[in-house]
């Protein structure tokens, strides 16, 4: 199971990085999304993969590590904030330069 997760993280990262290096804004947004999936999974995995042990206190149960979950939860929401910000930046850039190239309007 762990190896599968590692593969997932690796592939998500590779594809995210490749897309981030594209020249248009939209693939960069997609790449960032993929990259944040990868990072969130990685952070989450630092608490190890445990089945049926949610950190909800009940009598006699065992629990997985809640701390990485708390970190990842805020990371997901902040990730949304970042994507939204970049999306608006992309639109603004499009309006100003008339192109969706990431380097549009650069000083030559």
């Amino acid at each position, binding site marked *: 199971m762990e190896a599968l*997760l590692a593969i997932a993280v690796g592939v998500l990262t590779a594809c995210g990085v490749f897309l981030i*290096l594209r020249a248009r804004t939209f693939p960069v947004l997609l790449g960032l999304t993929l990259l944040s999936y990868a990072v969130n999974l990685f952070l989450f995995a630092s608490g190890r993969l445990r089945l049926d*042990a949610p950190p909800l206190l009940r009598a006699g149960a065992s629990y997985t590590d809640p701390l990485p979950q708390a970190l990842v939860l805020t990371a997901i929401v902040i990730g949304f904030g970042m994507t939204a910000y970049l999306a608006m930046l992309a639109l603004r850039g499009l309006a100003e330069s008339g192109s969706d190239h990431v380097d549009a309007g650069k000083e030559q």
Partner: protein
Amino acid sequence: MNSSLLLAAIPATAFAAFSLPLLLQRYGRASAALAAAAVMAACLALLLPLLPAALAGHTQLAHLAWLPAYGLDLHLRLDGLGLLFCLLILGIGLLVVLYAAWYLPKSDRLGRFYSILLLFMAAMLGVVLSENLLLLLIFWEITSLSSFLLVAYHSDQYEARIGARMALAVTGAGGLALLAGILLLGGIAGSFDLSVILAAGERIRAHALYAPTLILILLGAFTKSAQFPFHFWLPNAMTAPTPVSAYLHSATMVKAGVFLLARLYPALGGSELWFWLVGGSGALTLVYAAAMALFRNDIKGLLAYSTISQLGLITLLFGLDTPLSVVAALFHIINHAIFKASLFMAAGVIDHECGTRDMRRVNGMFRVMPITATLAILAAGSMAGVPLLNGFLSKEMFFAETVSAPQFATLGWALPLFATLAGMLAVAYSSRFVHDVFFNGEAIDLPRQPHEPPRWMRAPIELLVLLCLLVGLFPGWTVGPWLAAAALSTLQGPLPEFELALWHGFNQPVLMSLLALAGGVIVYALRAPLFAWQAQLPPMHARTAFERCYRQLASSARQILAMLDNASLQRYNALLLSFVVLLGGWAYFSGPASGIRLPGQPADEAAVAALLTLLLGTLGATLLYRQRLLALLLVSVVGLVVALTFLRFSAPDLALTQFAVETGTIILMLLVLYYLPPQSAPKSSARRLSRDLLLALLAGGGLGLITLQMLAAPFETISGFYLQQSLPGGGGANVVNVILVDFRGFDTLGEITVLAMVALASHALLDRLVLIAPAQDGDGRRWSEEAHPLFLAMLMRPLLPLALTVSVYLLLRGHHQPGGGFVAGLVSSVALIMQYLGNGIAFAQPRLPHHPARLLALGLLLAAGIGVASWPFARPFLTSAHGHLQLPLLGDVELASAMVFDLGVYIVVVTVVLTVLSGIGGLSLRARSSREKS
């Protein structure tokens, strides 16, 4: 009031009130000047009650913890030395305030000038009142910065900007050296507090790091006090308005360096190295600058070099390293401040009246302004060391010290001869100033017709010259007690026997004084051949050399920058990622070697299926990224798999959040997609493609490998605490939620603040933006003209209350069950956004009263307010409370204050999502209206 509170109030008042003149300048120039004077007077008034104890030789301390972990605390100290400097700073400051009101042009409203002057004064007070050396350094840097602003006060003048920049560069570099020196000194002494450091002199001098410490600290002191070879900034800083020069360049800022020498004398002085470095630099500066002063044609230039020379004299006295030489140095600090401030003010009067300061043109002023001339001549006499004036006394003490210093045994007459030579040069340049400006025939081609200045412009000079005379005639009665107190605290030991008197009998110092007076007059008489000789010397170009270095540094920085920064995001990203890959690889391969063991749990069919779906989505999106809609759908599939992964591995909260965020993200991206132009992106070059592929493979492979290693490593966690304390300490069974809103509530507060900024940024970025969407999508299909599908519109309306109920339920149960502010907020906002989608923005906007800024403020205030609410109960910020409540019907309800915090989170999240999405959606509304207009 207790004395430590009073002491702390002095710099506190100065810093708190420094902007007062700026605020009051709209009531006129006089209000600004009065405000500045009032602040200084208030500081003096606060000082008065502390005065008797400081004069009696007591050291008064005030302690306020600031950053105790770094040894940086607000520890203040008032002793004789600090008192002496406080009086100079405030006394001369008051005179400068009065003088500047008359000096600066009537068009200047003065608020800015006085505010910077007060800021500088506050920082100077901080320097002389600091007990903690790190604190001293902070104030020291503020003096550098505020003096930069003062020197460049006439910022429209090129010369003023250059002068200010040079002063800042030199003193700023010195400040860095000083920081390093202070850190070393604190390390050796074990504390940054002066009380400890001054008592540890023996240990410091014996330490292996004594030499570097001393050199670094001296670099700070010498740059500030313009000692050779760092002197060149001071003449260039003469572009400052003259009141600034009178204040900074005579009495205060340039004295900060020698103040530091005095302050640290017991800790650093008393070694061979100290003598050679301090004494040597002082002696060189003394003679070199005195010679340079003689050849200046600008009055302020002459005064600047004479200041450098006199500072060299003070430095040399500290270098001589005897108790009496320290007394003489302190005495000369007082005298120099008094006569040099008055001379600068007189130079300002001449400049103000004549419109020029060139001594080749300004002549014969005695007839035009006899009173000012008399005053200036007296002050110049003091500078030259003419008997009956204060400068004579300290210069004579200096001569006496060169003869009686212990170094006399080894160096013989070299030092006294050197001193006499310097004395001669001082007499010569003082003579030049007096003779050239006030006599020497008629003025030549002056821009203005000079006459006596206004009464109040002359008043500060009169007062200072009166002081020159009083100190010169009755030294024991006027400065005796102040000097004794300052010397006592500087030496931190027994006070040497000294007698301040005009006449000690005919001895070597008197002979030296006579020689200097006579020799000086002769040197001045022989000035014609001297000037001719000087004119054929190769010019000394400290300033040009400095400028060349500066330009070279700037241009090489620009070259490096141009190499890295070509304004291409692709380049930046590639560089950053390569660096990360390199760094990660280096860390990985230099760490302890461990083989990869395939760990743990067996994979089941569901996991394999999930992975395959994820791979399909990820790789598909990457390969088909040009088909935007398809790629977006594929990415959303990946997001769902990630959410399911969270669910599978015991993280229901994460799964809920991921589902909700996924929905929001897809809507967001669809909206963006609508506006993007149809694609015509050229294919990337093969080189670019292979570079990107390589980077992607390295990054992906690396992170995958690290993940595997991490999962195989033994598991240690600090979460036991959270699991144990969640119920008793936080009152919640959902540990993740309790961590978010309680244990790590401060982090969460920061995070929702960031989110709130995103909402505000959306306003800034999208406000008034008009973006016409292309008529076709990427594949050449026209957008559907059909308004909002009836089916969707009808379905969405009843869905809204249902969805809102669910989100309230999620919010309320979040403390115990999966849910909470983040998830509930996302669910609510998606439900609201669906109204926009279903019915159109024209329908939804007016029905959803929406004030983003107010809502954001409400959310943040709720979250922060519940944190502050713990203060009245004497608990730290964000301490939560919880308890049980018996309600009718509902029975036992557990309430925690953290739930209010969660409500704040909820409000912020809803507002952010709604603002961003409706903001982008709103673009279409504007585009439509602008289309209709045209």
